[in-house]
């Protein structure tokens, strides 16, 4: 079992989540953000281009030397050969795996523990999402049926009151104070005296 009924992780799932994460693949310390080997190509391009363009303002297309800024933009947008942030010295295992996975068959054909672990994690998450969605739907259905049976009862008991429930209110104003739940509650807590929103002069 991956997740217990209370949402806590089992011991096996804990191992799986830590073993397959990027932390496991990159046991060596990650490069600081300031050291970027991916910029080397751009830097080389810039270093090559700078002396040549130092004097000229207008560049002719016949020169074949591009604006170094264009080179830089292209490398940022399209450069896939650079290393990623988390995997320092091993050559881009995630990229290599991505291409390999596409060549593998979609059907599970044999033991591949890392892939199985990743797929198990994703399956457990999908199962959790499905359970949450089912709970929401069941709650909606329950409340709707309660409302419908109340309306049916009212129709039997008092036609005048039943007619009174039809249609919209004469003056319908959406309440401004209907508050969206947030991460933390308001600093002042519940407004018992109804004076929190009064402008203090």
């Amino acid at each position, binding site marked *: 079992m991956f997740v217990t009924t209370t*949402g806590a992780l089992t011991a096996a799932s804990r191992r799986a989540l830590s073993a397959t*994460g990027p932390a496991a693949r990159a046991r060596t310390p990650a490069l600081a953000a300031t050291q970027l080997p991916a910029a080397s190509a751009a830097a080389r391009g810039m270093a090559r281009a700078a002396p040549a363009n130092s004097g000229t303002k207008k560049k002719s297309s016949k020169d074949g030397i591009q604006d170094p800024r264009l080179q830089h933009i292209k490398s940022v947008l399209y450069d896939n050969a650079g290393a990623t942030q988390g995997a320092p010295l091993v050559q881009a295992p995630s990229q290599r795996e991505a291409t390999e996975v596409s060549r593998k068959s979609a059907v599970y054909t044999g033991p591949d523990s890392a892939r199985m672990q990743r797929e198990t994690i994703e399956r457990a998450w999908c199962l959790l999402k499905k359970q949450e969605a089912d709970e929401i739907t069941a709650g909606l259905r329950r409340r709707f049926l309660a409302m419908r*049976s109340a309306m049916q*009862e009212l129709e039997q008991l008092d036609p005048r009151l039943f007619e009174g*429930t039809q249609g919209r209110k004469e003056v319908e104003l959406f309440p401004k104070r*209907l508050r969206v739940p947030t*991460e933390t*509650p308001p600093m002042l807590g519940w407004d*018992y005296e109804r004076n929190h929103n009064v402008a203090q002069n």
Partner: protein
Amino acid sequence: MFARRLFSTHAALRAAAKAAPSAPKEAGSKAAKAAPAAPAAAKAVPGEHKTVAVGVLLKRNPVVLPELSEFQQAYRAYREAMERDEARPFDSTFYFKKGSVAEQRWLAAQEAAAALGPDQHLVQPKEEELLKLRTAPRITAADAAGDVKSLDRALARSLYLVVQHAAGTQGWRLPQGPVVGEQLLHETRGANACMYAPRPPNRTVQAASERLAEACGSAMETWVVGKAPVGHAKDGNKTVFYMKAHIFSGKIVPSGEIKDHAWLTKEELASKLDPAYYAQISGMLSDL
């Protein structure tokens, strides 16, 4: 002008209620049957509906988001780490002008984060105002004390108002009151008094459940959802139809009709209320 007429009829109702002799003193067996229905059964309200009463499901919505389970937190951390690992390296020379103040703040923030530990990811430089930001705790003192009259309790859940009416021996119930005269179910005095909705000039009916709002006090800001009831419960020879309402601010000011009140979550209601009564009203309660 309309407010004065509202209060004058309201005062007349109260006077009539006080003048009418209380039923438990007069008719023994009849009162025993009628007493569980409503507080009005004890004080005979003129023009009271014989078979229909109105109640209110007053709900305080959750104030904070629900807590994540351990699996949800671990999965979120796992996915964030994977995204960081597979992301392209961030080229600060592309986004920040060399030697600019923004670049210096950025690099200083990364160095400060790198000093904390080896496996750090990119951090945003924080404004001074954000660093001074304080937040209130999600678990409040009312949670610790278990104060069921407090609206600061169980912030991640909905709270429903239950009361114990002074008259009768029916125990804890959702608040209810009679339907008098030409009233409709959805008009409660609490909603119309506290909200901005003006009363239409050609409306001659009085607000329904005036006794109900009178019982709970008008120191609350409430809003009744729509005109239709959300559930019903059989109560002796009467059927109580419940209107859903939200409370946004304020408090309960109990009058003589309410002996005790509490704000409870759905699970606490299941244990506090009579099981047969809870089975009738549980359909209209929200899960969260």
